């Protein structure tokens, strides 16, 4: 049997295979669109949350700086600033290098620190890890 004759005989099956392949591609595409929509919603939600957190982090950083400026020897104020710096870096309102530089200035106060400093040190370690 000639190839062309066999091909004609197999037309329906080839059409079936093509339909299967195309529909699979279509379903994957549609599913991805659907997944993409869900991701966009999620991203928008996260973005809204991020903006709120950024504002709060900026405000908290300002308050902690003001408190330490008012009481430079207050270990609790220094620890509070360290945590605020860490949060600001995490929230993306402060560059990590700038945050690390300013945090370094606070380590001198850590000498007489106690349990007050521990959470701040851990938060800074996490924020400035990279």
């Amino acid at each position, binding site marked *: *049997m000639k190839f*062309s*004759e*066999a*091909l*004609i*005989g*197999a*037309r*329906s*099956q*080839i059409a*079936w*295979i093509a*339909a*299967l*392949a195309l*529909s*699979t591609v*279509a*379903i*994957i595409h*549609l*599913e991805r669109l*659907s997944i993409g929509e869900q991701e966009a919603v999620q991203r928008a939600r996260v973005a809204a949350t991020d903006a709120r957190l950024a504002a709060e982090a900026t405000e908290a950083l300002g308050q902690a700086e003001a408190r330490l400026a008012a009481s430079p020897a207050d270990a609790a104020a220094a620890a509070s600033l360290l945590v605020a710096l860490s949060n600001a870096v995490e929230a993306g309102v402060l560059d990590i290098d700038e945050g690390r530089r300013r945090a370094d200035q606070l380590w001198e106060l850590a000498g007489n620190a106690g349990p007050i400093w521990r959470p701040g040190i851990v938060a800074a370690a996490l924020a400035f890890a990279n």
Partner: protein
Amino acid sequence: MTRFERQVPWQISRHSQLHHALWQFLATCSLIFGAWYLWWRWTESLNFAALWFSLPLVVAETLAYIGLILFTINIWTDRSPQPGPSPHSLRDITGDPLTPERPLVIDVFFATYNEDPEIVRKGLQAAKRLDYPHPIEVRVHVLDDGRRPPMGDVAREEGVNYITRTDNVGYKAGNLRNAMNHTSGDLIVICDADTIPLPHLLTETLGYFRDPRMAWVQTPQWFWDVPPGVPLPVMLARRFGRVGGGVGRAAEALIGPVRLGEDPFGNDPQLFYDFILRRRNWANAAFCCGAGSVHRREAVMEVALRTWATDVDVSFQRQLDEIRQLTGEAEVDRRLATVTRVSAAQEVDFTPFMLHVSEDIYTSIRLHKDRERGWKSVQHPVVVSRMVSPNDLLSWTIQRFKYAGGTLDILRTDNPLFAKGMTLPQRIMYGVTFYSYLSPLWNVVFLLWPVIFLFTGLVPVATYSIDFLLHIVPFLLLNELAQLAGFWGAKTMSGRRWYLAMFPLNIQALWAVVRKRKISFPVTPKQRSEGRFLSLVKWQLLVVGLSIAGLIWAWTLHLGGGGTYSIGGLVANTLWGVNNILSLMPIIFAAVWKPDPEFDLPIMERFQHEVQ
């Protein structure tokens, strides 16, 4: 022109070794991916929230997969015995040097009941013209179960033997048994009333009988009156004039010739004879299909005698037990035992061909089970006879119901799969045949489940996600590619559609057999019945209607923002439903089909014209 228009048989598929290797590679990959898919289905994708809906589908998928394994084994290879040179004499086919070296004697049987004697005459004339390269004696016999004087007249006019009997016990099988009692040829050619043997029938087939264990050779049943359908350009030109004709020609230039209404009853048997049956040769499991087969008389009679002796013995023992129970004696008197044995011998029928609606396959099983003699069979690929197909849905239904009911009846009453005698490959091959007739049990699920999804949103799998596609698509694609390679040269889609569409008929046959109803022996009509047979396709119509309604309902709901359909599930079930509709449409079309007077009738009526 298609081969249906030219009225020529199909070309035998001859695949190269590389081609076979490709088919076997793809088939193996398909089965492995299928197993992986099913494993995932059973272990990770059942929907426990709707287990009543989920479980039947996975069971149906598993059963269908088992069928696929069996079918793959069936068509794994086309390794076949090759015929030797045409035998000169009887000695050449017995392998016994003491056998006389005389020309072979061939009996050609034409079994008839109520068919037009003029149809039979064409076959008788053709049988008298059979070629053979050596001296041979061909004796042609009309086996008329209708006891009709006009049939006797035709036999006399043609100078052939006329055999009839006083009753119709066993119908066709009984008719053949009676003929064997009145004849003595070394080999027997079985023809139906509408069979026209071609001149090369004996030269093509007798070479196989050089093997003294070759019991029969089956040849393809080629229906030469299959309606060829109307060419697409002609059909479009009839509806839309010259523009339509032009569009049709353009379409044909792109995708090749298209014939609308070609083979409306899916009768073309190429797939069965050239692939399914022929590829059982390696397992020595090609069964006899009746017309177009050549049998060694010795094999048929010897197996019949053995079976008869066994049955007599069973009957004798039963009667002895009854006598012992009645008399309370441990030993039965010797003279009484002798009389009982004679009674048992008279009680049991001696029959070369099993008196059964599927006498051909039943007789084949009996021969294949005779391990001691190791009888062989072969499906010869070359078409050496032609016959008439059932060209209306009523005749088609009668024929297919007989096939299904007869085969399932053998499975119930005399299951050969676990009986002694057959080899494992033979058991598997017969298993494929029996198993295929159980398919409506899972096909019903495949037809109805998308309908339920579309109306309710219920999902039979845990999720129609990309994970689902990842598991099912490789399996489906590989399966399709494997079949494309394995059946290259044949049209498979038509067969698959009819296989699915036959579900009500097969369920009916299954139900009749389960209730132990006798499957009757009606003769398949040789004349076309005019009419619409929508009542025969009412279940198919119902499924198509429900599928269409479900599709409209689901998409309307989804596009309107309602429903709980996932897009993946909706698309997948839409494709599934559309596939079901396309599979059921051919049989619905066949129910209302009328032959085209320009293209179909000349082909279908050529036989009648020849007769006239």
